[in-house]
Every structure is written in C-alpha cells, then in structure tokens.
C-alpha cells in the first residue's frame, strides 16, 4: 500500500480523479430498481454501487416489539463480501451495526411514524461496491426507496460528506481521500426543512474548518437533492413499452 507518497491534490488544485475541491463525483440514481420491494432505489456515486429496498408498513415480528403509537423503522446497512478490496465477511461487523443505527436515525425524522401504529417499515441497504461515502449514498437511496414505497414523509433526506485532504476542505470524498485524508464529515439534510439529521466526524478539524466543511456538505446535499427529485419524477413519468 502507498503511504503518503502521493499528493491527494495537485498543483492546479485538482484531486486524484481530476475533480475540483467542491465538485461531486458523477451520480446516477434510479428509482424502482427492484420489483419485489414496496419501494426501491439504486445509486451510483463514483464507484459506489448501492441498492436500497423498503418493505412495509407491514406486520411486525416478533410482535412484542411493536409500538402502540407508531411504526417501528428498522434499518439494515450491509456490505457485500465482494464490495471491497479484501473480502469482507458477510456477518454484520460492528461498523455495519453502528451505521445501521445512524442511518435509521437519519431517516426517522422524515417519516410520519405515527401513521402506522403496531407495524414495521424495513429498510434494507446493500452496498454492492464501496468507494468511500457509502453511508451518505445509502441514505440518499434509502430515502428515495421510502418515497417510492409511498410512505408519507415530511421531506426527502439527502446526504453527502465533506472533509479535509492535504489542508483543503473538499466535497464528497472518495475511498483514497477518505483513507489518507485528515478528516471526514458525513452529513444528512432534510433540504426543505433545512435541518441536519445525520452528522458524524472523524479526523482533526479546527472549529472554522468544521464550519466550512458543514457548509460545503450542505451545498453538496442540495445539488444531489435536485438529482433525487429528478430520479423520482422520472420513474412516474416514464411509460415503459411492454413487449408481448
């Protein structure tokens, strides 16, 4: 493995993949990618390839976990064994358990949970290929899957990370930048209500740099939100030709 031999930002201020500091990776979003799920979405962000599916509101098992006044949102973030360089064991790691929790807590504020007491809504996220920023791309896709399932929502949730590499605050870190960079700030936003539903950080940032990163991440979220809306609209506008 190369260790700090390469510079992450060149003399012209461009990143390893030629992006400017405030530029997103190419994003492709498809709503309704799976036919069995009540709602689903597929996202590609850089080399990330992620599927999200929603089942429910449906009966909850085991029944004693049901809540009398609202639905239970359950969320599973999982990485495929082939999604990373070295094979990942399919058993849920501690990282995946933590991410499942923070993703659930990022989506919960957007849903009218009280509309469906005694039920469960299940969100399943499968990372097919990982390239840094998977939790954010997962949230973007999962929120669309929820909307696709017809779950009543206050707003979509959109997520994007910002961070610091080579003393520059940059948007949407890819794998190499995530690993060799100095800080990473994943953030999820409900863009119309303008509130933050996921916020994590690791690395070292001064409060000023942190503020800059948060503002940059929010800008990124707003750009992705436009694509999110477009993808959602595209599913319901398109009329598929059915062959015999």
């Amino acid at each position, binding site marked *: 493995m190369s260790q700090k031999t390469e510079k992450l930002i060149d003399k012209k201020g461009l990143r390893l993949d030629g992006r400017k500091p405030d530029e997103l990776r190419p994003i492709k979003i498809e709503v309704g990618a799976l036919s069995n799920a009540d709602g689903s979405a597929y996202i590609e962000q850089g080399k990330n390839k992620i599927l999200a599916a929603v089942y429910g509101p449906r009966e909850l098992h085991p029944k004693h976990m049901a809540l009398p006044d609202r639905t239970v949102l359950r969320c599973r973030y999982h990485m495929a064994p082939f999604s990373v360089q070295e094979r990942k064991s399919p058993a849920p790691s501690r990282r995946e358990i933590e991410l499942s929790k923070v993703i659930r807590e990022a989506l919960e504020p957007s849903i009218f949970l009280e509309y469906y007491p005694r039920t469960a809504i299940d969100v399943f996220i499968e990372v097919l290929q990982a390239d840094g920023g998977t939790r954010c791309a997962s949230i973007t896709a999962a929120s669309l899957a929820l909307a696709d399932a017809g779950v009543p929502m206050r707003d979509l949730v959109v997520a994007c990370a910002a961070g610091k590499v080579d003393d520059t605050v940059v948007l949407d870190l890819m794998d190499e930048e995530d690993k060799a960079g100095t800080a990473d700030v994943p953030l999820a936003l409900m863009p119309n209500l303008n509130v*933050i539903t996921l916020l994590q950080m690791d690395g070292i*940032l001064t409060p000023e740099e942190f*503020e800059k990163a948060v503002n940059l991440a929010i800008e990124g979220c707003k750009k992705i939100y436009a694509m999110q809306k477009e993808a959602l609209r595209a599913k319901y506008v398109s009329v598929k030709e059915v062959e015999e």
Partner: protein
Amino acid sequence: MSTVITRVKQRQIAQLIAKGKRLDGRGLTDYREIKVEQGIIERAEGSARVCLGKTEVMVGTKIEIGEPFPDTPDEGVLTVNAELVPLASPTFEPGPPDENSIELARIVDRGIRESKAIDMGKLCIEPGKKVFVIFVDVYVLNHDGNLIDASALAAMAALLNTKMPKYEVEEGEIKIRPGYTQIPIRRHPVTVTFAKINEKLVVDPWLDEEQVMDARLSIAFDDDGNICAMQKGGSGYFTQKQVFEAVTIGREKADEIRKKLGW
C-alpha cells in the same frame, strides 16, 4: 433503552428548559459533579472509575503482545469494547453487545484514535510482526444518562494510568524485563454531549432528560480545541446554527474539564 417516565415529568422538564432551567437545578451548560478515581483494579494494566452525578462507569485496560494490522505494520493496536452490564439499569439485558453498546464503544474509540491520544508508533516491538495491543473495556455500572461522556473520560483516565511491561529484543526474541513504563500518551481528548430538548441545547443530559430529548450530539475536542470526533444520535434533527453553537459551548466545556482534572 427507555424506561417509563411520566407525562407530567416530561412536560415539566421541557417547560423548565424553555425557561433556561433544569429539573435538577443545573444551568443548561453545567455538568454534574465529576469524580475520577484511578488505579482501582490491581490486576488490570490500567483502570479508572468515573462518576458523573449518579452515572458510574469503570474502565479497565489490558495489554497483550499481538500482531499489527497489515496497513499499519509499525503501530500498536487499540481495541475499545463497551458492556452495558445488566446490573446498571433495568433496561440492560444480558447477551451479545447491542447497537447501543457498539455505538458507545465506537464513539469512545474514535475520540481516542482520531485525536492521536496514544503514540501508537511507540507500541511497536517488531514492525509487521509484534506490537502491543491495548484493550480498553468500558464497563457501565450505573446508568443515569450521558454514558458517552462518562465512558470517554473513564477511558482516558484509565489510559493515563496504564503501564506496559519493559522489554528487550534479543536475537529476534522478546524478553520481558522486570518493571513497567507508562504508555505514551500525547493528547487528552474530552467528549461533550448535548441533548436537544424543546429546540434548546443542554449539556450532560441525565437519564430523564435523555428520555425527553429529540436528538443528541457528542463532540470530542483535543487539547488545542480542535474537533476530533462527532456523532449525532437520536431520531430528531439539528439546525446548522445549533450545531455551531454546540461546537462553541463544547470547546469551552472540554477545556474546563481538562483543567479541573489537571490533564
């Protein structure tokens, strides 16, 4: 992780906070009394007990010789684990770690790791082959809210108290010598947790406030006041303004605590 709290009390807590007061008499940015004891478990390489009001957390550290991670062949290994022991709360159950204890362990881990609190390079014995592995085990003994700050403090206090064996490498073999040295600690991260109740931020929420809060934000600061880790929790949200406010208040609080403990 919820116990029952009456509606009356819920409302009382929320209404008081709107007026800038708290049910236990503290101001919105006041910590409960912090007590730190070190070296309480002789068999552990390092140990500490932290009381944050009625919340009580014990941390023990163990040191073993093991293999480094392939991507950091010349650094020691840090492993943090947290146990929500059933004797600490009616809501804790025996069994494998659940998402709450995993999240707690990972927040504590991130604060120590990202601030580079331990000089991991000095824990290397033979690059790529043998290094010291530090196990930090967080043991929650009494849950009265804000386990994150109490656990992070206890983990740091235990690490400051941790000794590693003296050794010598002779012809590729490790010889343990009599005596111990302190593990190399460079930084003293302090984590400050906020609860958002009624659109107001309160520092160091106790259990009843945690039942009422909409969301939680934990921020770890290093000795220079830089942010080194952050985690939002709970099913609510924060505004941008609230986040920046938390950073400003948290930075002061972390400094205060560090001064009080002489770190």
